[in-house]
């Protein structure tokens, strides 16, 4: 049985767990625990400590694993472990929270340094009225033209499928180049 891995990363509360939950065939295995800081508690009650884990079985011989990274910097020692051997990665950005853009860019650069694999940026919460549009986000995050920056709603399965497919197309393109 061959297994391949993709990593879903991004800042705290950017929607990584929800993204994996929308597409995984198993209940997402999360290692969450209660939030300790007031600022973080105001956003959600629990957070991913080590990783989320989802699975998509292709057939008897092939399984895709989706790993979600912990969004908080104090758990960044886990990132390198999760990045090992990944086929590609998705950087989730909460389009409604410009205060997290700098962190998103920093995470993106860190993962690029871990492994030179293809990646896409998913601009989550595009269904919110306060969301920055993708053109503005591209400039704000200084994402190069060749990198896909995709509108996303992490709780919508079709939207998640589109993001994963775009990442796979990028991986294919790189193999063919």
């Amino acid at each position: 049985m061959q297994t391949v891995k993709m990593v879903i990363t991004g800042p705290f509360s950017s929607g990584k767990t929800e993204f994996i939950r929308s597409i995984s065939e198993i209940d997402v295995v999360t290692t969450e625990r209660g939030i300790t800081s007031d600022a973080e508690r105001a956003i959600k009650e629990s957070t991913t400590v080590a990783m989320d884990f989802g699975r998509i079985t292709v057939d008897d011989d092939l399984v895709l694993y989706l790993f979600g990274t912990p969004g908080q910097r104090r758990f960044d020692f886990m990132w390198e472990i999760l990045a090992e051997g990944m086929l590609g990665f998705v950087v989730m950005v909460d389009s409604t929270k410009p205060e997290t853009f700098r962190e998103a860019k920093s995470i993106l650069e860190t993962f690029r340094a871990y492994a030179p694999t293809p990646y896409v940026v998913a601009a989550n919460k595009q269904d919110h009225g306060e969301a920055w549009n993708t053109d503005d986000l591209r400039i704000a995050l200084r994402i190069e033209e060749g990198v896909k920056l995709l509108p996303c709603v992490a709780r919508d399965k079709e939207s998640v499928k589109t993001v994963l497919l775009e990442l796979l197309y990028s991986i294919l393109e790189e193999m063919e180049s």
Partner: protein
Amino acid sequence: MPLQGNLRDFSTTQLLNLINLAGKTGTLTLFEGVKTGEKDAVGGDKMTPGRERARISFKVGKLILAALGGQDGNLVSVLNKAGKLTDEQARIIRERARNTSDKALALLLINANYVTQRDIVSSIQQHTLDVVYNLLGWSEGPFRFEDNSLPSSDRILVPIDLENVIIEGARRIKEVEQLNSHLPNLDMALKFPDNPREKFKGIHLSVEEWRVVSFVNPKNTIRQIAKANNMSEVEIRRIIYGLEQAGLVEIVRPAAAEVPAGAVASGSGKPQVPAARKAPPVQKTVVNRLIDKIRSI
């Protein structure tokens, strides 16, 4: 939908860059921040927009008008500030042309030979740049960009390329950073060197420099001198830097201020990035199978 956020997270320079690159048309409004008592996603104080601090308009990525909150920014004030109209002329024109639009007033002033068209354009341009350079130093406060919102049609709009503004703004920010790093602590004091008479011979100081010099005394902190002269932190730092470079004053550094705070181990909290690691080889057929599977979900 409006582009909104806080300058703390997305600086004015970054906003100008975005507006320039995206060729946006609209108005950017900067506000004083009113703390809500809640925290945002990164632990900063959440703020709602309070009093308007500044308003800047753009057309297809070009700066066309800027005004600080509390300033009328009309043509008479701008020409008066630029020295093209005297205070008396400005007062009379304000009285007589109270309900006249800027455009109509400009025609009257040109026809009456008070000013030339070039005077008007250069004064408005300089005023706009002064406002924008001023707010480039702001580091906090909510902002909102309203697409396609433009000033009223009676205002005179002078388009200015943003590239140079951004470069000059970045240069000024860098200068402020250098001044801050040179003089990180305004609670230090100044003293004259051992032979001040000799050093001051033949030196021409500006009014502001003399004001600072007149307060030089190890008992006065730099902060107190700035306050007494109604100077901003940037102004006092710039003046002291010049005086110090000319050898006219010496900064009396408290022992604890020998190493600027934050200079030690800067960036040491960053995670160490290991050498790039390639993914294990995966065949194209595997990727195609994954694509087919995800399409079918």
